[in-house]
């Protein structure tokens, strides 16, 4: 039996004057998932999101919440529905006459019966999680755009909502912060268990945290599926839109996006003879969640960035190319190297990363880790040899099985 969608759009049409924005939009959002809407600017992504929370009403069609049309809800049902949703605006919509703390505390102050102390504790907890403690007393105009974004995120999450709508939460952020925010959304989704609907242009970064992708093109949803299914999506959207949105290299690591990585290895391996071999290395950043929680999301992203830089430096020099496979895993292909040569390069990489990379990370972490805080993380690598006629996925799988730790960070000491 098919799972009942949490939110469903059925033939939603919306026009402003003579301009039609949505023309028969259909999609489903399932509970506990991160659903990302992608599309070019001005194609109606925010309009779609605003329909869910009732800021806009469709000219035709229906929006259903757990199978019930929201326009036919009683006042009580509507209040209960809206109470479960939180919205993070594209331009933050922070109250400029209130401090960051007052902005975050406002929904609790006005819609709950919590005591002043409880409100303060809850608001401050979210402010700390979004690393805004030092600017809690400042007004939005006194802080940077990135901080304003995080303040809006803190406000959206302070009521522990069941559904959170994020309208371009990472716009205007540097790559580290961008990925930190995406990581934060993934982490809170796990902790609070909300369903997220996200609008983002950060391709491929956003794919790592998304369960489903919706592609809005020409006033309609033209694709609905997993990020993996998106790779094989045969539609003008894929060529015209996705390629223009997708960076050649991922922002945070500087490595190839998975699609470009795929194009590259297909091209490279097609040129090789059937008896020629190549090497695949799979890098893992174990305990990434622990780093995010113990220090900060920024620290986790810095570790990823550092690892990406060192991979590029050592393996790129010998014709290798790499990508980020998942939120904490990298894949490198050395098309001209066998396993022995790959091992030699890896030894040099390990020595350099342990000597310099880990030292740099340790210095960064020292500034942020509280004295009594203890956490571990491990960087591991696995290797496998492949041949052009063998499926690359199975070679990668072999490499995963072979993973061994090459660098460890334990309770503030690096090894």
């Amino acid at each position, binding site marked *: 039996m098919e799972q009942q969608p949490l939110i469903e759009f059925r033939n939603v049409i919306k026009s402003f004057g003579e301009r039609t924005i949505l023309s028969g939009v259909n999609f489903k959002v399932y509970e506990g998932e991160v659903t990302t809407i992608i599309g070019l600017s001005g194609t109606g992504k925010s309009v779609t999101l605003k329909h869910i929370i009732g800021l806009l009403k469709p000219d035709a069609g229906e929006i259903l919440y757990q199978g019930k049309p929201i326009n036919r809800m009683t006042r009580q049902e509507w209040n209960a529905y*809206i109470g479960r949703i939180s919205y993070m605006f594209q331009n933050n919509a922070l*109250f400029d006459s209130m401090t960051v703390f007052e902005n975050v505390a406002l929904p609790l102050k006005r819609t709950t019966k919590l005591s002043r102390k409880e409100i303060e504790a809850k608001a401050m907890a979210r402010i700390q999680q979004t690393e805004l403690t030092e600017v809690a007393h400042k007004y939005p105009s006194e802080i940077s755009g990135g901080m304003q974004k995080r303040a809006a995120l803190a406000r959206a999450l302070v009521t522990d909502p069941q559904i959170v709508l994020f309208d371009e939460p990472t716009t205007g952020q540097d790559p580290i912060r961008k990925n930190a925010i995406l990581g934060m959304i993934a982490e809170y989704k796990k902790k609070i268990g909300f369903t997220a609907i996200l609008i983002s242009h950060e391709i491929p970064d956003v794919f790592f945290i998304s369960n489903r992708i919706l592609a809005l093109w020409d006033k309609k949803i033209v694709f609905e599926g997993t990020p993996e299914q998106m790779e094989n999506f045969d539609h003008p959207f894929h060529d015209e839109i996705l390629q223009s949105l997708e960076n050649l290299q991922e922002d945070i690591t500087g490595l190839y996006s998975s699609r470009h990585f795929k194009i590259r290895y297909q091209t490279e391996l097609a040129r090789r003879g059937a008896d020629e071999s190549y090497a695949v290395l799979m890098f893992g950043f174990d305990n990434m969640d622990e780093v995010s929680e113990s220090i900060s999301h920024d620290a986790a992203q810095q570790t990823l960035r550092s690892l990406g830089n060192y991979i590029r430096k050592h393996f790129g020099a010998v014709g290798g190319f790499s990508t980020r496979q998942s939120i904490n895993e990298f894949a490198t292909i050395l098309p001209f190297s066998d396993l022995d040569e790959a091992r030699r390069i890896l030894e040099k990489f390990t020595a350099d990363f342990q000597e310099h990379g880990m030292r740099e990370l340790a210095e960064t972490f020292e500034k942020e880790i509280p004295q009594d805080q203890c956490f571990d993380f491990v960087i591991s690598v696995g290797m496998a040899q492949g041949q052009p006629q063998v499926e690359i996925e199975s070679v990668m799988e072999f490499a995963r099985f072979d993973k061994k730790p090459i660098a460890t960070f334990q309770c503030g000491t690096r090894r």
Partner: protein
Amino acid sequence: MAVDQLPDNEPIAAAPKGRGPVLALIFNPFGRFGIRLNNTLGAMAIFLARAFIQIFHYKQVPEIINQVYFIGAKSASIVALVGFFTGMVLGLQLYYVMNKFGAVGFLGTAVALSLIRELGPVLAAIMITARAGSAMTAEIGIQRISEQIDALTTMRIDPLGYLISPRIAAALISFPILTAFFDLIGILGGYLSGVVLMGASPGSYLYRIDASVEWIDVKGGFIKSIVFALLVITICCFQGYFTHMRRDSYGSKSVSLSTTSAVVLSCVMILVSDYVVTSFLL
């Protein structure tokens, strides 16, 4: 179907033959204006009613205090200044006129009654409109165009209750107090110009005030100030709240035009309603 729900292209009635189209051409704009006016007045009444009923909630108290400070306390100095000079001008002019008839002894009566019955409520309301009303329209307008009002809705906070209700309560508290303050300062100003500068009798000035000003005069002034408070606050907040609905402009330009409209409309309505209320009170 309500008039405002009619689609733009739907014919309201078939055009009559002969001279019909010419007449329609002449009268259609009046009709459209009438319909628009009717809709706006209806919307304002609903706006005021919905905001008014949300005043009575304990969570409004801190906000009302804030707004009383903004509308009332912060307007006190400008109200005092205008009141003082209005009183001084009245003292001078009335001394000059009354001196011709040998009725300088009634200077206190004339100054006090002019201020309490008419000038106090009207000028205080106009000054509050200029200082606080314009600021309110601009503030609410900016909150509207920067989606802060939408943000309130998404947080399950009724924007009318949060933004408008405390302002209505504060205006109802502040207007009568500021009017009384204006009257007092005005009487002092009249004393300064009429008695100290021009030489009218101080005892006579104060005695005539005490003897001629009755409770009904004070009550009339207060009624006017409450009517003006409701008018000013509704017009200013309404203009700001619906600044995004303007057809003549967008964004920051619409905020500036809404602010101008709010001030002009409030001042006109103060004077119009002053006549209406006065005719009922007399």
